[in-house]
């Protein structure tokens, strides 16, 4: 097995899907000759040509709408949002046109919107957001948020092959900070299945995206103190794998949910409610959340460091929970 970056895993998934399915094509800003703001599509124009690697005008709603139209007539478009923050410009096309289409007309809309999201890069309020909960709240969309190169590749391939609109949240910090082994051959991971990244019997830590790394680091610190944390990596935010969540919570009786997005009405709120409803009698402590505060993402280092959850803050919460 070869060790590659999260960025390379995404690049490989796109390349392989384009190579084997001529319906797959790319739309986005600066993805052609420039190779994308993060260089995911470097070399794609040369290999696949300008009809399948389309540099669009700066018009997110326009090119998301175009992707929907192409999907409706049999293509499999993959849209690159330059930053997930700009996805709000295309919100209407995503939640009104793409998300509701199958419900109304029983016609599939097979498309993927890649959304480079998340903080820790000192990029400020407009290049750091985590918009995933907006889309989880919109029936008709699947939302994926991988944490490792292995998951990133297998889940992107599944997203491209899925007959529904998928918001694929790829964490920008992980692009070059996450490395891992990926099989050389073809593999696809199913959407809607969480992955237990670490087994443990004392506390369940539920998270996704860049917080998985931080959570694993915190879990190692706790292990040194004799507390064994089980880490559930959601991987897909909709459909949510409540089975895996509840199995773990029933085993440990204590739960910490961590995400980088703001707390109010976030993914964590939904998970906490599901646990309260389905596993109440198994709980030995209140379900806890550690998230970003209810502010925009700040720019300057001390502010952003304060804003984001990290391994130390997670470990501190886990300690509170352990001694509850």
């Amino acid at each position: 097995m070869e060790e590659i970056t999260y960025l390379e895993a995404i690049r490989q998934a796109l390349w392989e899907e384009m190579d084997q399915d001529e319906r797959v094509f790319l739309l986005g800003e600066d993805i052609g000759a420039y190779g994308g703001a993060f260089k995911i599509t470097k070399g794609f124009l040369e290999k696949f040509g300008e009809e399948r690697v389309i540099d669009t005008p700066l018009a997110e709603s326009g090119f998301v709408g175009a992707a929907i139209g192409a999907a409706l007539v049999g293509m499999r478009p993959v849209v690159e949002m330059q930053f997930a923050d700009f996805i709000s410009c295309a919100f209407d096309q995503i939640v009104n046109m793409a998300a509701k289409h199958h419900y109304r007309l029983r016609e599939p809309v097979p498309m993927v919107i890649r959304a480079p999201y998340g903080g820790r890069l000192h990029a400020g309020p407009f290049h750091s957001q985590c918009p995933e909960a907006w889309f989880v709240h919109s029936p008709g969309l699947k939302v994926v948020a991988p944490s490792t190169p292995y998951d990133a590749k297998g889940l992107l391939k599944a997203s491209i092959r899925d007959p529904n609109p998928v918001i694929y949240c790829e964490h920008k910090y992980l692009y070059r900070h996450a490395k891992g082994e990926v099989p050389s051959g073809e593999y696809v991971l199913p959407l809607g299945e969480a992955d237990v990244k670490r087994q443990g019997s004392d506390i369940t830590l539920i998270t996704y995206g860049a917080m998985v790394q931080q959570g694993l680091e915190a879990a190692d610190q706790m292990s040194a103190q004799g507390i064994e944390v089980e880490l559930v990596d959601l991987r897909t935010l909709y459909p949510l794998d409540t089975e895996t969540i509840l199995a773990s919570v029933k085993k440990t009786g204590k739960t910490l949910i961590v995400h980088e997005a703001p707390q109010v009405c976030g993914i964590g709120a939904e998970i906490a409610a599901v646990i309260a409803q389905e596993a109440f009698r198994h709980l030995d402590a209140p379900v806890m959340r550690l998230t970003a505060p209810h502010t925009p993402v700040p720019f300057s280092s001390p502010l952003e460091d304060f804003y984001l959850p990290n391994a130390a803050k997670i470990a501190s919460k886990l300690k509170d929970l352990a001694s509850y």
Partner: protein
Amino acid sequence: MSVGTEDLLKFYYYLLLTRGLEDRVIKLYRQGRILGGCYVGSGEEAISVGSACALEPRDVIAPTHRDLGAHLVKGVQPKEYMAQYLGRRTGLTRGKDGNVHFGDLSRHIIGFISPMADGIPVAAGAALAFKIRREPRIAVAYCGDGASSRGDFHEGLNLAAVLTLPIVFICHNNQYAYSVPLSRQMAVPHVADRAKAYGFPTRIIDGNDVLAVYEATTEAAARARSGGGPTFIECKTMRMRGHAEHDDASYVPRELLEEWRRKDPIQRFERTLREREVPEASMRAVQVRVLKEIEDAVDFAEKSPLPDAHEALEGVFAT
């Protein structure tokens, strides 16, 4: 352009069927027999019928709520339209959506949704797919004057322009967006003035003349199909009723409506048919056929089952 008697009668059939179905739906609305709002295109039938008749069967359209005629030309059956209005399972959305919010890709119709102009970039995307696959098909995107203020209108036109897409844009300039007159919608006299900025041909035509719409669309479709890129056709017309039937449109000057009533597209076309010596008996046969189809459609819809309540949960995702 020569249009034979057979085509003239086809246009006549779709014009009458569109007007007749919508008049019938208005009555049903007044009688409280349909669910929800009632949106018609009275006085604008020549635009949807004339344009859709100029297309090849596999060309894709993205119509609006004033384009019943285009749906019918593309093969939507009157009974499906009525069932849709009555919220029946036999409607094109099986009761999931109402009135003219429907489509069917097997008949090459992209379903309309309420946010205006959303269909424009979507139609451009269908055209992009045809271009990538080198299929000799085009897309037609419809909109109103109000929609031309939305970003999706401009983003869609611009995208189509820079990618030289096989698409025709057809605008019903019916002079009102709900209650807001054109003068508050834009500070230029024509919607085509806005479209001109994108660098492809624009035309302004009489939207109440079905033959003018047919001719302009035929020309634009040929350009699109041969790789010449988009065309924007502004069809001047008048919204003869409220935005929907709950709206009495008292904000529209009566004189303006009177002026446009004299330009009614169907009465005008009947004069044309007589000038071209289309036999009265043939016209009468069309009228009789249309009346029967409308009554059959109402009958079918009213006898159709409503969806079962649990169907509300079905179909959110494709499998």
